[in-house]
Structures are given as structure tokens and as C-alpha cells.
């Protein structure tokens, strides 16, 4: 009987699993199930090129539609999985249809956190995760539009930069005392904060949102302090969490995400997971991690395919991320740890900088702005667990290559 792999979730991870299976010679059936009606696409350009109207949405497609036909990958678009029966090995969808599988791959990614305040459902309040949402937001932004962004994380700041490029009036409302606090080191966060201010973004730090108000559509954001910010459009970027509800009662072990080992296997045989939806063990990092990144989706997608093909590839890639805001390219590798020492390294050539996060002689993370050399060396130093000193890292004239 023909084998069948059912991949639920058609984002970066799901598409990678399908492609890598075919590249590896898998001759069974492959079904790739996507919640959205669109040909699978990459999300990073949505908050950048698509919002700035530099790219048509089609340019974000990961592969053309013909690619899936040529590779006998059955695209099932516009359907969501609602339950899985791991005993019967079948998945139920929201249109009440079923699909059976020999191997199941969970790639459902994340879902948006919603803003739990009054007025959050008014017209003019947007989120940004899908291409439809990006196009909707892009359609509302023009010169002079007053945009209030709730949440100073990656999405919030990338949207702020794009909206300034479109000459909108931009406010960023952040609950904490630092932008990008969850992922960026303080030196990097303050560099980007300053750059946004220089580009005319108005920040409201340590500010909780009390409510959104307006008659027919949103007109203002009221902060807990009582201050009111007039807005034509509100963009909410307050994080995501793994999309796990459909796995309730399945027996698949879930904590913050679907728990997988370094081969992307869940606790059940024939059930794998890849991408944002996972909580993973990584040989280079201690403990369990939820890594929301393209790199992680691609790396895990390849490992899942290898596992289904009977190989035992392990996750060894050092995690990396990137962002773009104005003319700053942020590149990050590794994961800083609790108790790390932060070492800043200026870059007088580009005006950028890097921050290294070290413990003793061990480098745990590097975050660079317009300093790709620091980033590339840092990534290799982390991978090889090479010894470093703060003096070497801080000295712009010390050639980091000597450490490799």
C-alpha cells in the first residue's frame, strides 16, 4: 500500500517538509493542508516590502503553484484541521472531511494574541500575520494617516518603519520599559529605539492600553494613565502562541508547543512537528525552546523529512534571525542566557554595532546591526563553542577571525 504523509500547516515549515521529502526520494503521497486559500508564501516580507507596496503579494510565494503539481504534492487550501485521532491515524477538518495518514507532520505555526480590551473589534483595528491582513493594512496607510501600534516587538517596529516610509504619523505603545525586550539585548534595543525616534516615531513606553474607542471605526487609544492618542488605524502586535487547540485529547505531548526531540519526533510514533508550533530540545542550547523563526522552520522541516525517510539527522544549526528597519539590518544568532555578560562592539565604518552575550569564555549569542562580519564570526564561534574574551570582542580593531 502507498504510504501517505499528511502535513498540516502550509507555511515555511510545512512546505519545507514536502519539498525535502520529494528531494529525498519519497515516493508516497504527500498532502499539504493550509488554512489560508493562498498558494503558500513567506511571511517576513509582509511587514516590510508588502506594507511599503514595493512587492506584489504574489512575490512572497515560496514556490509557484506548478511546483506542487510537478512534485505530486496535493495542496489542500482553505481548510483547517480541527482534531486528530492518533489511534485511527486520521485528521478531521473544519468541513467535516477526514484524511488518513501513515505519518503526520504538525506545522500549524502560531496564532495571534488578541488585545483583550474594549473597542478592540472596531473597524480600523488590524493585526498582521497573513497576507490578507498585510494588504488590508497597506490599503489603510497613506501619507498623513495616524497609525497607533500597540506592542514594540519585531512586528510593531517593522510596521513602524514601513509606515514612516509611507509618511504616516506613527505612535508605538509598549507596556514594558524597552522595545523588543523578549528577544533583543538592551544595547541593540536602544540603538533601534533611537533610530525610530530619529525617523519621527513617537514612543509611549511603560504604557498599558485601557481601551480603544470610536463611533463607526477606531478613533483613539486610551492608555491606563488616562492619556489619549488619536488614531485612524491601530495595529496590534502583542505576540503569538503556538496553534495547538486542534491537538486536544490526541495524546500528543504539548507544553508551550508540541514537544519534539532533536529529530523532530513527538512522543507518539509517526507524529512529527516542525516550526513555530514546536517546543524543542537543541543540542547547543540548554532546556526547551520555542523558536519563532524562518530558520527554525526550515531546519526542522528538513529534519522531519529525513526522519520519515528513515535517516537520523539531528538539529545542530545555531538558531538565527533577522529583521530590517529603515537602513538597519539586524542579524542575530544563538540564544542569550540568564546571567550572561553583554559586550558591545562598535562599527565605526557603518555606524552599526554588535552586542555579544557571553558567559565566562563561552559565547551564547550575537546580535548585530549593519555588521555582518561580527554576525558571521559569532555564528561560527557559537557553533564551535570557541573561547572568547570580552576584551577581544569589544575591540573593534581586533580581528575576530583569529578566534576561529
Amino acid at each position, binding site marked *: 500500500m502507498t504510504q501517505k504523509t499528511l502535513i498540516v500547516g502550509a507555511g515555511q515549515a510545512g512546505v519545507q517538509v514536502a*519539498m525535502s521529502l*520529494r*528531494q529525498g526520494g519519497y515516493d508516497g503521497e504527500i498532502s499539504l493542508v493550509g488554512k489560508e486559500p493562498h498558494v503558500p508564501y*513567506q511571511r*517576513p*516580507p509582509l511587514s516590510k516590502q508588502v506594507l511599503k507596496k514595493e512587492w506584489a503579494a504574489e512575490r*512572497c510565494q515560496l*514556490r*509557484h503553484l506548478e*511546483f506542487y503539481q510537478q*512534485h505530486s504534492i496535493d495542496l489542500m487550501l482553505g481548510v483547517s484541521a480541527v482534531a486528530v485521532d492518533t489511534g485511527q491515524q486520521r485528521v478531521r477538518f473544519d468541513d467535516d472531511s477526514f484524511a488518513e495518514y501513515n505519518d503526520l507532520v504538525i506545522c500549524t505555526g502560531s496564532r495571534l494574541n488578541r488585545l483583550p480590551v474594549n473597542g478592540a473589534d472596531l473597524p480600523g483595528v488590524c493585526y498582521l500575520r497573513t497576507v490578507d491582513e498585510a494588504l488590508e493594512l497597506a490599503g489603510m496607510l497613506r501619507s498623513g494617516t495616524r497609525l497607533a501600534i500597540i506592542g514594540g516587538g519585531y512586528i510593531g517596529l517593522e510596521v513602524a518603519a514601513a509606515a514612516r516610509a509611507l509618511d504616516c504619523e506613527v505612535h508605538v505603545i509598549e507596556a514594558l520599559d524597552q522595545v523588543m525586550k523578549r528577544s533583543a539585548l538592551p544595547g541593540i534595543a536602544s540603538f533601534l529605539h533611537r533610530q525610530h525616534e530619529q525617523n519621527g516615531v513617537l514612543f509611549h513606553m511603560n504604557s498599558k492600553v485601557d481601551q480603544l474607542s470610536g463611533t463607526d471605526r477606531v478613533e483613539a487609544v486610551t492608555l491606563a494613565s488616562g492619556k489619549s492618542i488619536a488614531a485612524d488605524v491601530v495595529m496590534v502586535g502583542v505576540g503569538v502562541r503556538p496553534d495547538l487547540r486542534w491537538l486536544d485529547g490526541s495524546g500528543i505531548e504539548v507544553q508551550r508547543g508540541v514537544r519534539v526531540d532533536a529529530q523532530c519526533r513527538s512522543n507518539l510514533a509517526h507524529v512529527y512537528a516542525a516550526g513555530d508550533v514546536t517546543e524543542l530540545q537543541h543540542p547547543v542550547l540548554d532546556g526547551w525552546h520555542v523558536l519563532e523563526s*524562518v*530558520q527554525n522552520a*526550515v531546519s526542522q522541516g528538513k529534519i522531519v523529512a529525513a526522519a520519515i525517510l528513515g535517516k537520523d539527522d539531528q538539529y545542530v544549526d545555531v538558531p*538565527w534571525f*533577522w529583521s*530590517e528597519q529603515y537602513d538597519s*539590518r539586524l*542579524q542575530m544568532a544563538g540564544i542569550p542566557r540568564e546571567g550572561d555578560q553583554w559586550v558591545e562592539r562598535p562599527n565605526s565604518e*557603518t555606524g552599526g554595532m554588535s552586542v555579544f552575550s557571553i558567559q565566562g569564555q563561552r559565547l551564547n549569542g550575537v546580535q548585530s546591526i*549593519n*555588521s*555582518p*562580519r561580527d554576525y*558571521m*564570526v559569532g555564528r*561560527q564561534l557559537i557553533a564551535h563553542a570557541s573561547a572568547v574574551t570580552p576584551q577581544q570582542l569589544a575591540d573593534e580593531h581586533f580581528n575576530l*577571525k583569529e578566534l576561529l
Partner: protein
Amino acid sequence: MITINVTDRDNQTHKIEAHPNDRLMEVLREFDWGVSAICGGMCSCATCHVFLEGDWAEQFPQREMDEEELLEFLDYFKPNSRLSCQLELLDKHDGLTVTLAPEE
């Protein structure tokens, strides 16, 4: 349409077609043997590394600093290395010959 000659990582050669104004990376990632191009063309990941054969390097603008700095740290860096996301194809590139760099 222009034609590009590509040698893949298994030393197989392919003749492929491209539209002028495509980025070379966008053409190469369509194939099973192609590049992974994880960052989607942002010059951030160096996973679309190719070698330009013969004199073809002269037919493209020189590397910008960011591309240069990513490339020089790759294990397989050579003088004719380029990130294919930074190469815009034009009519004059008909017959371009490239080799895919090994995966890092």
C-alpha cells in the same frame, strides 16, 4: 527569455530559462537541486551562494559591503563567489554559467 547554465552540487549540469529582471536566486530556488535561499533575498543568510564561471563576474555590479562580509566567512568562499539574491538578470546575461556552492 535568457538561458542560464547551472552546475549543481552533484556536478550535474542544467540549462534553465529565466526572465530578464528576475533575481538569479528566485530562478534557482525553483529546482530540487537549487538553492534554499532561506531569508528570501534579504542578503541575510548566505544560503544562495553561487560561483560565477568564466568572465561572468564582470557582467554584474560589484558586491556591496554586506554581501562581501557574509561571503568572506563562508567555508567555500572563492574569489568568484556571489550571493545569487543580489544578482539581477538582464538580457546581456544570456548564456550565464554558474556553479552552486556546497551547502555550509
